C-alpha cells in the first residue's frame, strides 16, 4: 500500500522538501568549489581565510576575494533569476521551450547597448546597464503589442512568433550598426556570450533590487502560475484574467532577465533547461518549481562556470558558451528519453 501511494504520488511535501534540501547542500558544496577552482590552486585554508581573515599580502587569498567571490555571488544571483524567469515564461506562454529570450529580452538588450554606444557615445559601463534594461523592456513591449493583435489577445503561439520576429529585426539592426562602427563591434563582443568573469560586483548591486523583487513576486505568484499554465478556458473558468496576468508575469520576467543580461550578458539554456530539470523532482506545482529554480539555477550556472575555468586552461571559456554546449545536448536527450514534462 505504501509502495502504491509512493508510485501514485511521488511529489509529496516531504519528498519535495528533502529534494530541495539536497539541492541546497549541493549548492553549498559548489560554492566552496567555485572559490577554490580556477587558473591557480587555492587551498581550503586560503579560501576560508580570504572570506573571514583576509591577508592582503597573500596572492591566493586576493584571488579568492577579488575574483572568485564576486563571480560566485554574481552566479548565484543570475542563475536564480534566469531559472525563475524561464519557469515563469514557460507558464505564461504555455510553451515548454520558452525562455527569457523568447520575448526578445536578449536581442533588445544588445540593441540597447549598441545604440547607446553608437548614437549617444555612452562610455561608462554603468550606462550600458540601463540601456540593456531599456532595450529588453522595449523589445518585450513590442512583442506583446504584436502578439496581442487579433482575436483572442496575446496567445502563447502569437507571443512566441512575435518574439522571433522582433528578435530577428533587432538582431539585423544591431548588426547594421556594428558594421558602421568597429568600436561598437568591440562592445558587442561583450554581449555575444555571457560571462561571470571580470564583472563588477557593483553592477550586480545596482540591479539587485530588480532581482530580489522579481524572484519574490514570482514565488508569491506560484498559485497564479499554476492556473495560468492550464489551458485558456480552464484558467478563465477559475476567474483569472489571463491576458492581464500574462502581461504582469512578462514584465517581471523582463526585470529578471534584463537585469541578468545587463550584469553578465546573454546566458542561454539556464532559463530553458532548469525548469525542466527541477520538474522531475518538484512536480508541476509552480510553488515548488519556482523554489527549486532559486537553488538549481545557480547550481547549473556555477557548475558551467567552474567547467569553463578548467577546460581551456590557462584561459577560460565564457559561461554562456559552456551552458550552450552542455545545455543543447541535454535538452535533446531530455526530449528523446521522455516527453517534455507537463507544465
Amino acid at each position: 500500500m505504501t509502495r502504491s501511494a509512493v508510485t501514485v504520488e511521488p511529489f509529496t511535501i516531504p519528498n519535495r522538501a528533502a529534494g530541495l534540501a539536497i539541492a541546497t547542500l549541493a549548492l553549498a558544496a559548489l560554492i566552496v568549489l567555485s572559490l577554490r577552482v580556477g587558473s591557480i590552486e587555492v587551498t581550503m585554508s586560503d579560501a576560508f581565510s580570504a572570506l573571514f581573515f583576509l591577508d592582503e599580502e597573500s596572492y591566493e587569498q586576493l584571488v579568492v576575494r577579488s575574483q572568485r567571490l564576486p563571480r560566485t555571488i554574481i552566479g548565484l544571483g543570475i542563475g536564480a533569476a534566469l531559472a525563475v524567469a524561464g519557469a515563469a515564461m514557460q507558464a505564461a506562454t504555455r510553451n515548454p521551450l520558452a525562455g527569457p529570450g523568447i520575448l526578445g529580452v536578449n536581442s533588445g538588450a544588445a540593441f540597447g547597448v549598441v545604440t547607446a554606444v553608437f548614437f549617444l557615445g555612452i562610455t561608462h559601463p554603468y550606462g550600458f546597464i540601463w540601456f540593456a534594461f531599456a532595450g529588453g523592456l522595449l523589445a518585450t513591449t513590442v512583442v506583446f503589442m504584436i502578439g496581442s493583435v487579433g482575436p483572442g489577445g496575446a496567445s502563447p503561439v502569437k507571443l512566441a512568433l512575435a518574439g522571433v520576429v522582433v528578435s530577428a529585426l533587432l538582431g539585423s539592426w544591431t548588426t547594421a550598426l556594428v558594421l558602421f562602427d568597429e568600436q561598437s563591434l568591440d562592445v558587442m563582443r561583450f554581449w555575444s556570450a555571457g560571462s561571470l568573469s571580470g564583472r563588477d560586483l557593483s553592477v550586480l548591486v545596482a540591479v539587485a533590487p530588480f532581482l530580489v523583487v522579481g524572484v519574490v513576486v514570482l514565488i508569491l505568484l506560484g498559485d497564479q502560475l499554476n492556473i495560468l499554465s492550464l489551458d485558456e478556458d480552464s484558467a478563465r473558468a477559475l476567474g483569472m484574467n489571463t491576458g492581464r496576468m500574462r502581461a504582469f508575469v512578462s514584465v517581471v520576467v523582463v526585470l529578471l532577465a534584463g537585469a541578468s543580461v545587463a550584469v553578465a550578458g546573454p546566458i542561454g539554456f539556464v532559463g530553458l533547461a532548469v525548469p525542466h530539470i527541477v520538474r522531475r523532482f518538484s512536480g508541476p506545482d509552480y510553488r515548488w518549481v519556482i523554489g527549486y529554480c532559486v537553488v538549481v539555477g545557480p547550481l547549473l550556472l556555477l557548475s558551467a562556470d567552474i567547467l569553463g575555468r578548467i577546460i581551456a586552461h590557462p584561459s577560460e571559456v565564457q559561461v554562456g558558451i559552456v551552458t550552450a554546449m552542455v545545455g543543447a545536448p541535454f535538452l535533446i536527450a531530455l526530449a528523446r528519453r521522455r516527453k517534455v514534462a507537463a507544465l
Partner: protein
Amino acid sequence: MADCAKARALLMPAACLVAAALLMGCGGGESNGTADETVKNGEAETRTVHHHGGTTKIPADPRRVVTVHDQHGLLPLWSLGFRDIVGSVGSTRDGERFFRRMESHGYSPSDVEWISPWGEPDLEAIAALNPDLIVGVATNEPIYEQLSGIAPTVLMNPWRDAPLREIVMDYARLVGLEDEADRLEAEYQEKLDALREAVDEPHELVISLIGYGAHGGAELGQFYAVGSDGHPVEAILRKIGFARPAEQLAVDERTYYSVERLRDHDGHLLLRMTHDQGSSSDDERHSQAIQGSPLWNQLTAVRLGQAIDLDGEAMVGGGYDPYITASERLLEIVEKADTSGDLSHMVVATPDDS
C-alpha cells in the same frame, strides 16, 4: 642536319619553359613579390611577379595602386615613400573612416580613397578606381580571382616565417623602391644596436609583455601574451635577449590567460600594449578588470612603478615603422629600468633557454 636544327628549334622553347618552371619551383615554399623579369609588352613595361596567390604580370611602374589591407598594404608601401596609391580598404571609428596605423606614424594619406571596411573589400568600388595594380594579402585569397579580374593582383604574406627584411623587400620590389627598403633596414639595425649597448646584461632584466582589451580578442578579465608570432615588440625583446616570464617565451601564438595568472607574467618591467585609440570606453572597462584588481598591485613591476603602457597602434602593422618606433621606445624604457625587485614567485627564462 636540317632535321636536327629543326628539332633544336622546336625543343628550345620547350626547354626554356621547363627551365623557367624549375627555377620558379626552386624559388622556395612561399616567395612573395619576387620580380623575375621586365618585359616591354607593346607600350607598357611589365614584370612577372611570384607571390602568395601565384604568378602575375604587373606594370613595371605602377601608377594607380589599390591596397586591399591598410596596415599590411597601405602602410608598408607608404612608409617606403610610395605615393601612387589611389585607394585602400580601411576601418571606421565613431562613424569616421580612416586607415589603421597611418596616423600613429604621422602619415596623412588624404588623396587615398577609402574603399570599404578592411574585412569586406568592396569589389565594385575597387574596379571604379581603375587600378593598374592591386596589392592584397594572404587573407584576401578567397577573392583573388575577382580581384585579378579587375587588375593584376598580387597577394603578400607578411605573416610568413621570414626575416623582416625579406618581407619588406617583397613590397619594395613591387614598386621599385628596394634602395629605400635597404635604408630603412640600416636604420632599424642602428636602433637595435643602440638598444644592445644600453643594457649590459639583458639576461638580468626581466621584461613582461602583455595586452588586454577587445581589440586583442581578450574577454573581460583576461589578458594575453603575444607569443613568438611576429609582433614587433616581442620580436625585438627576443632579438636582444631580455629575460622574460617563461610562460611568454613558451607560447608560439597569442595566448589568453585569466587575470588570476598575472603573477606568472610579472617582471622588472611590465609592458602593456594599448590600442585605445577611439575605443576608450572599451579600454576603460578592460583596464578596470585588470588594473583595478588588487592582484595588479601585488606585482613587482607595479610596485617598482615600472608597469608601462606601449602605444600598440604605433607598434603593429607592416613595414619598418612599427619596428623602429618600438625599438626607440624600448630604448627610452630600459635605460631607466630598476632591477631591484624580487621575482622569486615566478619562473624566468631567456630566449636562449626556449
